[in-house]
Structure formats: C-alpha cells, structure tokens
C-alpha cells in the first residue's frame, strides 16, 4: 500500500508494507539514515523522531498509521530549540560514539520546545527513554541546561 505524509515539511509517498516500521522506511526507502536502529522495541530511543512535534519511537510506529502525519527527523529538525540544542551539544563535546545522539537531540529538542527552562527532574523524565551506552548523560544534562540558557538569551 502507499501512504502519503509529510517528512521534514515535504510531502512524501511511502510504498511499503503497512506493518513495516517507519524507521526502516526512513532509512531504506528514503535514505535518511540519521535516525538510528537501536533495539526495535522502543526501549532505547535511538530512533526518536517527532510526530506533530511529539517525540516518538519510529521502530514501533508503523507506516500504515501515518497517513497525513507530519514527521520530523534529525535531518530536518530546526527552530530555536533544535538550534540551541545542537550548539550546546557541540560546545560541550557531548557525543562519544555518537550513535544515540540523533535520538537524544530529538528528545531534548521536544523537551525544550515544551518546557523552556527544564529542571533536573524534567530532564530525567524526558530523557530516561534514551539510552546512551557511552553514558554521556552528565554532559547531555549540562547541554540541555545550556541550551535553555541560549534560548532565553
């Protein structure tokens, strides 16, 4: 079947098995590999994208459910929060292996778009679904606070 949706603002038609995950449609059909495969069961957050601005796990979001949806991926994320997050990530040298960071950035951007001045507890709640095996969490936390400061400035 084919499904028409918006990805990063552009209308795209996916010709895929309706039960196939958005993750693999993005990566294999559209060649957008910034969104990563980590677990396939929505337990690690590496595949986080935005659906109407909300962070979702693309490995457990099926193509058949996406007619008319607006999806944003790491390749297309922009706006004040995203820019602040990416800048802070660079300034603090957050990534190590970097594989989870697309998902971390998508989750952090969604958090800041919703809550411009998050507390440590807000960060715990928003980011606990995103695993980083290099354990860059301390820097992610600092970078989210730094990004919040940037957005305020």
């Amino acid at each position, binding site marked *: 079947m084919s499904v028409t949706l918006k990805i990063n603002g552009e209308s795209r038609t996916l010709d895929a098995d309706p039960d196939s995950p958005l993750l693999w449609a993005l990566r294999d059909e559209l060649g957008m590999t910034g969104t990563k495969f980590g677990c396939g069961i929505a337990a690690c957050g590496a595949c986080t994208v935005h659906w109407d601005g909300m962070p979702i796990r693309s490995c457990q979001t099926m193509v058949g459910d996406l007619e008319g949806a607006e999806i944003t*991926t790491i390749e297309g994320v922009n706006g004040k929060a995203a820019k602040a997050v990416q800048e802070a990530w660079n300034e603090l040298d957050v990534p190590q292996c970097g594989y989870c960071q697309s998902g971390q950035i998508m989750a952090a951007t969604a958090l800041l778009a919703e809550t411009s001045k998050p507390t440590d507890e807000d960060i715990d709640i928003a980011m606990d679904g995103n695993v980083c095996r290099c354990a860059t969490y301390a820097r992610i936390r600092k970078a989210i606070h730094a990004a919040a400061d940037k957005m305020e400035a």
Partner: protein
Amino acid sequence: MLHLLHKPLEAQKPSRRTFLKMSAGAVGGLIIAAKMPNAAKAAAGADEFVQPFVHIRPDNTVVVLSKHLDKGQGTANGLATLVADELDASHEQIVLALAPSNPQLYANSLFGVQGTGGSTAIPNAFMQYRQAGAAAKAMVVSAAAKEWGVPAGEITISDGVVSHASGKSATLGELAGLAANEDVPAEPALKTPDQWVYIGKSFPRKDVKNKTVGAPNTYTIDFSREGMLTATVARSPRFGGTVKSFNAAEAKKVAGVVDIFQIPNGVAVVAESTWPAIKARDLLEIEWDDSAAETRSTDEMMTELKDMTTKSGLKVREDGDVDAALDASAKVMEIDYDFPFLAHGAMEPLDIVGEFDGETAQFWFGSQIPTIDHNVASTILGIPFEKVSINTLWAGGSFGRRAQGDAHPVSEISFLLKAMREAGMEPRPVKIVWTREDDMAGGYYRPMSAHKIKVGLDGDGNVTAVKYNIAAKSIIKGTAFEPMLMPNGVDHNMTEGASDTTYSFPMMNMDQAFQETPVPVLWWRSVGHTHTAYVMETMIDRIAKETGKDPVALRLELLKDDPRKTNVLKLAAEKAGWDTPLPEGRHRGVAVHKSFGSYVAEVVEISIREDDTVKVEKVVAAVDCGVPVNPDNIRAQVEGGIGYGLGAILRNQVTLSDGYVEETNFDTYESLRMSDMPEIEVHIVPSTDSPTGIGEPGTPPIGPAVANAIAAAKDKWITSLPFTKAGLV
C-alpha cells in the same frame, strides 16, 4: 579489550609471527614503514602531500588518518591533536579519517599487527604521530625555504600559516605539493612540552558536528553501495548448535526477499532491504543440532565455577606456603564472590558490508583488529591478502565487542558472499545487519566468574597472607592470541588487577581454573579488572572494617610502595572531602585501581531511597594517565567509564536457562539511564610521564566504591553481582 601491554609475571613481547600464523594466512614481511609506498604516492594529486598519517590537501585541509578504530573513545581526535600540535596546524583545518587495513603502515606498535584495544592507542602512537606531524612540518618548512630563498631556520608556522620575517607567507595547503617532494626526515625535531599548543590543553572533538546532525555514511549501518542487498542471519539460539535442517518456504514468500542460504553458522536471508530480511527470518523453520551445544543454565555453570575455586588450579602467583601462613594467623576472613556474564550492548549492533567479484573483495565496517579480519577474509574467499580491502568506518560503540579474535562478522559475511557466488548470483554488495537480539543473545560476553579469597590477619590486625582462587572461561585460550599471551598456560587477562597488586601484603598466592563451555567470551571494557578491582577493593574495606581502620588510611598504609596510586587516592579523598561530615542520609565509599597503566581513584556518595534502593549521587575521580593529551576527552572517558561500570554493577547480567539466553534486549538487560547518572567530577594529575590509556581505567573502581558505600550505609557486603540480586536497585 586487547590487553597485550600488561604482563604481571614476566615480560612477553608479542610475537607477530605466531599471531599471524594463528589468525589464518600470513602477511609476510611486516614492516612498520615511515614512508608511503610509491604506488600510493603516485596516486595522490601533484599538489597534495601524502604520508601514512598525514595528508595535506591543496584546499588547505589537513587529514589525519587514525590507525585505530574510533568507537567513541576519541582516539581519532587524540591522534589528530598530536599531529596538529607538531605541525602547528589550525584546529579548524584538521579533518579526521580512519585508516584502512594495512599492517605494513598501520600496525599497533604494541601488538605488531593493526588493532585497537587495551587502551593502547595513545600510548603506542604518542611518539609516532608526533613524529609524523613534526616530519610534515620539517618538509613544509624546507619547501618554503627553497621557494622563498630564505634559511629554513627563519621560517615559522603558527595556526596553519607558514611565514617569514620578510613578509612572505603561505598556507600549509599552498605548500603541500612542494613539501611532498622533500625527503622525509628520519628523526624530525619534536617540540618540548612547554611549546605544545594543543597537547595538555584543548583540542575539541572534530567528530561532534557529524554526530549532532545525523550525517550520512558515518556508521556501517548507514553505509550503502550501489545495488546493495541486506541480510540477516538466523544463528543457533544455543551456543555451539548447528543447523540440522531448515524450511525456507514461508520466508521466501516475503516481498523483497532475494534468496536464502545456509552458511556454516546458520541460515542467511538476503533481501532488497532491512525490514523484509528481519521479517522473513522469523518465518524460517530451523531444526538445530544441539549435540555440541551448551544446554546448562548459568546457575549450573556457576555451581561448577564455585566448585573449581575450592581446589588448586594453575599457579598465577606464588609467594610462599600460603596455607601455613593462614593457619598461623589469628583470624582468617573467607569471602566468595560471583560475577555474571555481561553483554557489551554497544548502541550500534554489529554490522558489516562486503562485496566479492570472485577476484577481489572489499569490506566496510568498524574493524577493530583489521589484520585478523583481513587474513580471515582472504583465507575464506581463497584470494590473496592484497586482493582484500578493509575500509574502517566509525563504530557506534564497542567496549571490546568489535575486537574478536575469531573475526566472526567478517567470517560470516565471507561465507555468505561465497555462497551467493557459488549459487550463480550476479555479484552484489551485501550488508549483514544484526538486530539487538542477535547482538545481545549472540555471546562474546564478559566471562562469568567465581572467586574465593582468604585473608589472614595477625593479632594486631595486619594482613599476614592472601589466598585468591578464581575460575572462569578464559578469553584467550583457544584463540589466535593464545600462543602470544599464554606462553606458560596462564591467562593474565583473568587475574590482572589482583595478581599484580601493589598492596604490600607479606604473601599472596593466586590460582586460576578454566571453565569449558561453547559460550564465546570476550574482553569487556577493562577485562579482568571488571572483577578483580571489585574483589580487591571491597576486600580492603572489609579488612578496614574488621580492624577498625579508616578505608583511605588503610589503603595509604598498604600502598607505601606505590606513589602514583597514593597520589590519586589522596587527591580524590581531598576533593571529595573524605574527612568532612556528610549530610544526613548520605554515605561514602572509595576505591583506587590501576589498569592499563593508568591510576584512578573514585570516591562516591550515595543515598538510600525510601524504598531501600540505592542512588549514586556523586563521584569524585582523580586520574593519573601520564601526559594528559586531551584533558577534556580524559574527563569524558572517565565519566563514560564510570557510567558504563555503574550500569553493569547495578543491574546487568546475561543468564542462560537450558542454554537459552534470557536477556535479549534493553527491556531485560536494563541499561544505565539519565536518572541513574551521578554528578561526576574528574581531577587530572599533571604529569610528564609517558601517556597511558584512558578508555577503560575509569570503569574498574566504580563498582567497589559503590559497594563500599553501601556497606558503610547498611553494613551489608554485596558479593554476588549485580546489585539487583540484593534487592538494592
């Protein structure tokens, strides 16, 4: 990880001849060359400067090729720091690249073959990459001197700009072509430490930008070739099982499936893209032959290990008649410990891309020991070593997982490429993707182990003797590394961090015994130190408790012959305010350990939640790793090393039931997460000693430091890992 540096009992220089023989095939004539082969030189553009580690391009970029796999530890940036400093290049113009497999050019000088591990990247390459940068600088200066007709001694380079007092100036890129024609100096002058502009200061990571925008072609899983197919492999769910028969009728019906092949270790589903390959594999009906498979539970395996520790084993260290010394002691403390299998759980599951046209083969992946991978591919495909290319890509983590002595990913894809060819398929590149379940249930674990330790104390509370027996499956035995690393039959990877302790015990004996099981095991960030540091450092706290001594004071007393360990311990204790009172509900613990040549002390502060579970609030670490090449990356590695160790100690284990893995994904193998991460302070000891590794040494002390804090809080000693077993998480 690979651990060839550390030889507690006797020096063993790696024999690359034996190593290569064992890793299948032979390279012949390994030379660590300083010069690029003529062919490579000729292939470069006329305006380009091309040397093994440094390319200067006409566009004024300076490419530094890392001979080591970068899997997040910052090695590529670290090596670039060395070149940039000696060359006086600007931070901006540096570009990081990973070198392909080439044992002549890119051998690890501590291994004799190309490979990354044992936290050896900076230690083995510190002089080599500085020399490469200094040689490039000398060649640029010499070329400029000729071009400008001025004495070379009057030319300076600063921040990538070459200049002379006469007003003449040029970029490195502008002089690249001329510099390429200069002779490579054999012994270029190196800077003195006071002249360093980046080393020991700051050189922000150049790989961060790509990793924050989801840049294409960064990792193997993202890598694509024209016409590429994607494959999954159904491997035996029990370790050591083989395919008896299979029915692929239903799997073949999945749209996008191209073909299905039996290969030595399973059944491969080859498809046009990833999802059909995953979906079709679930539809395979496979009957496995488990006659040689592991069918025990990990509980049964642990019973066997514990039994082994009650008997004499191979002598790792033997100071004297330890039984007599224990018999003569006023008191003997006897403690048993057990540690589970651990999966590495790198965020990017294993993956590899390969293509084979019958005469040449190419591979793209995060190859951690390229020389072995290269040999194995050449042997399986039956083509000469020179006809195989291995291109190294950035890896989404490893923690030891990609350093396989048996090269199983390249072996598997080589068999698949061969099967595709033999079936008459037109040559097409193929990518084998591992799902998380494949990766986690696929073995190559940190070995499970049992430890029995007896500590004798005299009437004054002084240690009289230590007897330590350990049992586990050997990581080394039966692999390509055995002849080199176990010449006398002893596996030091298993006992490192204990048999070589610098605690001044009057007598210590250590025995080891090897469990036999088809479950493959591998080095896991800090290898033997993952268990020995826990045993040694909690043992010291138990002695302190038994004898009424302060844990830091007792360590300092026993470390009188180890000034560097003493120094980091004092520094961490001071920075953490060890002697100051804690707020209500907080408790401290300490541990200090040397691994891979680096010294790390950690003081942790924990709280006990209302539900009696433990929260690690803060860690203060002090580190001595010699010259700190990139201090911020050292801090990052210690932060990450602490988080990696903490997650494992708190709640990670891989268990088997009837030989089947029970934890197959992050829902049951629960990773450390944001809310678990403590605040971390890292203090680096200024040093002029040769740099030692930092990828692993942050990990060993965290477990025992937390365990010691728990003991301080609850008078409860945890000896069976992970902490979830004690209901504390």
